[in-house]
């Protein structure tokens, strides 16, 4: 069974923000809400690494655990989605999320934040798939079209991988093998728990 996951290859990510605008364009996300962002570590000095981050669709999703109205659910493919009709905009999911994924459309005085918005893995929400209502509330439903998230599909250097966890782990493993050295995957453990590290950092023999 497919288990949808994201993986960002820090050796490839060049902080071009393609994923950010791909998401904005695909879902027409308004100014001020960013379902995805790119963060750069050691900016401007040797060791600079960039990472594209959004909802990681965690296995043990903290947002889901703390939601006072239980508006989150997980699909058969492991995508964490939420129901905006239920959401009360309390912001707890944002406190709990390790990745800062939940976004709110309003400034929030008196706690008025509007309905939470976040990456849907391009899988819409609990409205009729590919309907106008679904698009308006959650954006496009690419999975229901047999496609994968726009951000990963358009990544300029194919640093951001999104899709079936096994497949992307294989893709990543091939790269690590080519590079000939071990590597670590950012965020994987946090999002998907310990267990089998998807991209086994088995160091290839030195050539």
């Amino acid at each position: 069974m497919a288990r949808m996951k994201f993986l960002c290859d820090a050796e490839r990510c060049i902080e071009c923000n393609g994923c950010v605008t791909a998401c904005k364009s695909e879902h027409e996300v308004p100014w001020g809400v960013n379902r995805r962002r790119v963060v750069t570590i050691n900016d401007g000095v040797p060791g600079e690494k960039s990472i594209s981050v959004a909802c990681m669709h965690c296995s043990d999703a903290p947002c889901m655990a703390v939601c006072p109205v239980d508006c989150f659910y997980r699909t058969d493919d492991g995508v964490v989605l939420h129901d905006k009709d239920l959401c009360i905009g309390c912001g707890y999911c944002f406190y709990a999320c390790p990745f800062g994924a939940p976004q709110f459309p309003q400034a929030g005085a008196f706690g008025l934040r509007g309905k939470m918005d976040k990456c849907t893995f391009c899988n819409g929400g609990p409205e009729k798939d590919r309907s106008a209502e679904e698009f308006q509330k959650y954006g496009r439903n690419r999975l229901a079209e047999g496609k994968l998230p726009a951000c990963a599909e358009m990544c300029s250097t194919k640093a951001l991988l999104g899709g079936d966890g096994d497949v992307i782990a294989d893709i990543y493993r091939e790269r690590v093998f080519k590079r000939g050295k071990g590597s670590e995957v950012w965020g994987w453990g946090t999002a998907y728990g310990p267990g089998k590290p998807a991209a086994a950092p088995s160091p290839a023999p030195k050539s």
Partner: protein
Amino acid sequence: MLLTRKAGSQAAPQRRLSRGLAGSMAKTIDRRAFLKRSGLTLGAGAVAAQLPFNMIERAEAANEKPAGKVEIKRTVCTHCSVGCAIDAVVQNGVWVRQEPVFDSPLNLGAHCAKGASIREHGITHDSHRLKEPMKLEGGKWKTISWDQAYSEISDKLLKIKKESGPDALFVVGSSKHNNEQSYLLCKWVRLWGTNNTDHQARICHSTTVAGIANTWGYGAMTNSYNDEQNSKCLLFFGSNAAEAHPVSMLHTLHAKENGCKVIVADPRFTRTAAKADKYVRARSGTDVAFLFGLLYHIFNNGWEDKEYIKARVYGMDKVREEVMAKYTPDKVQDVTGVPEQEMLEVAKTLAENRPGFIIWAMGQTQHTNGNAVVRASAVLMLALGNVGRPGGGTNIYRGHDNVQGATDIGPNPDSLPGYYGVAPGSFAHWARVWNVDLKWLQSQFAPGQMTKPGITVSRWIDAVLEKNENIDQDPNIRAVVYWGHAPNSQSRGLEMLEAMKKLDLMVVIDPYPSASAAMFAMARKDGAYLLPAATQLETSGSVTASNRSLQWREQVIEPVFNSRTDQMIMYQLAQKLGFADQLVGKKDGKQNIKLVKGKGGMEEPDIEDTLREINRGTWTIGYTGQSPERLQAHMRNMHVFDVKTLRAKGGKDAKTGYDLTGDYFGLPWPCYGTAAIKHPGSPNLYDTTKHVMDGGGNFRANFGVDKDGVNLLAEDGSHSKGAEITTGYPEFDHVLVKKLGWWDDLTEDEKKEAEGKNWKTDLSGGIQRVVMKHGCHPFGNAKARAVVWNFPDGVPLHREPLYSPRPDLIDKWPTHDDVKNLWRLPTLFKTVQQKNRDAGKQFPLILTSGRLVEYEGGGEETRSNPWLAELQQDNFVEINPKAAADRGIRDGEYVWVSTPTGAKLKVKAQVTERVGADTCFIPFHFSGWWQGQDMLPFYPDGAAPIVRGEAVNTATTYGYDRVTLMQETKTTLCQVAKA
């Protein structure tokens, strides 16, 4: 706590903000709104519907109605030269989505921030485009009709022409025009009767084109982005590909993953540097010293490719002498600041990992000695034997999406399409192709001006401001047409404002003309017109990527608002100005370019026919084989092309039955001969390992057969695979073909046409066909020139920038002498340098400029795109923590950046170690602030970009390349102070 981003105060007009942040607390809350928001009176379902989730308010919000007609249009991104293919999903004529084209061998579906958000250009709701023709009247922008605009503009132009002659007009074309439009504009300007036309290539790669063409033949990227996958070493020197050409990094990083070494040398630790194996920091403006510093170690250790040099390079010994004498490690370290050990390491890496590329963009070209810098790069690659083979050469990253094509066949002051210099023979050739009477054409020009290269875009302001007796044409410039050009990409902004004040007429034709409009409206009350042009997504045509591949764009949507396609505007203006027939080649019952119905049923020149006319005349650089049919077949069958070689292993186009086998993707020029002979295009230039009919070649014989008794032709054995002539040979003409006994291979018709012609002027293509049949290259087989004799410095020479922080080095490495007449204008070198010898005391920091990934060029269109604008809301100056600390500047504060011009820029400080302590960096995409003042009042209503900021070029200083008048923007001096 984020929840909602605060848009910066300058970030967005209120209208835009309120769309994004509807219901934020910024506004007062009335009772109704309060109840609505708090949900106190409504049920849950209703609350959900009411609570603002403003994902969609746009009219075209995609309802997947089964009735909606969905079409997929394949186009190419308009933002840079990589050539990323895009599938546009169009529903009922509205562009609703875009999908990645995984099949494309160039980008494999990948996009950067600009490509992924390109759909914004087609969105009409809340668009920041110019929507109607406008006229500046009493300091206000007033909407007028197209007809009124045309008649007023043409009346004024004809009046000026009558009073001052055709040279009083200057037309700035665009690297964003597709090939056909560029070509038509080039023709348009000549039919008007002047050479005073230019486009962004002047200020981006003119030095490359001149320098590289003079070294070995063609002034273009030798290989392709893809070919880096075959490379062992990449030296990025003067290119920040990760921000300027992000998708090219897909190939770079793939190569790196497979063992290729990546070195970045730059004054900044760029995002490209972050991905490199090795980074070297060099002082801005010391490029020749750096390159020859590397060459010193290569010669010193005997790492040069001696056989290669002997067979294929002229003058390397002379270079060697000069390098060993002048560029010893101590001197190089003094000039560039790079220690000997690091230089040696880089040289060693280059030597041990061949083939390899040197990669550059504006970091090398925009210098007063840019021509020398690029030649030094070429010489370095020649010494290593890297040029003319897969995986090696000079990968020159062009900027705009079609700057390569516009350079090849577009509006240039010194050449007609295909680099036919403005000589009588060239005009005769093109008059024949254009089906225009040569005599009439000659009569359009002012006497004696037809064969004189025109004014350059970098200097039009001087052609307005300079004393009349100092310029090499009768009138000063009185009218300027900006046809897709941003004023803020030109240096010396202060003086441009002065020039605008003196103009009689300014016409701006652009989808986003606002920077020019605002500047002009700030300078004066009247005298300007704005015409809304369609984007490249609203027309069809071919576009040449940096790797010389041509791709065909389908029209995605109709021109939005009241905009018209560029070719329509050209034709309609030509009608008013009296040369419409000539523009479409209508004479003696023949018409080259048919007229088709465009927007609103109005006639415009047919794009496919235009390309066919280009095919008929552009023999020099092989724009002859790329027929619209072949290009379209390539676009439909991208999946058959190999990513590493760009070659189709097989495949047949389902629609036309065209057999793609053996073609290189996009038929990278030169694609010699007519389309019928099926030359596959040349993926790598000068590659002797391939047959010329497989895209192989050798260095061009363009400078005679010998120089002072030294053979300039290639030595025996260094010919392209399968050539029947195994020695060097000159370029072909009818005489040589006859001498070789190949004349009878021509058909009778071909013979008739080819008689008395050479490979460049034979319109039948017979000479090229026959020569290639014999495995030979039409342009001959010669050596590359490490030394040239038609440039001021035969061997490239380091010369200190005009504004240098090192007076001691100015004395040792002075710039050129002043030139009285260069491209019709006096040009200063030494005077400026000497006058500013000690400018470093007052302005101790080097100021350099460059790209941001989110924006492009002058930035007007990308700063109008909310999805991009949100990411970069303020212009900034990168300053080293030490320099900042010395000045009491903190990160994020506003600072004043001042330069010796007296201009002051108000930008935010970005304190970072990305730049060294002696250097500052400002991105060049911003405009809309003028020395701290927001120019918003001067913009036409609704056409101001979302993000405005200080343009770095308001403050850049004087300085032009000695050969091409490329502007100096990469090295000048500044001071930074707390605002």
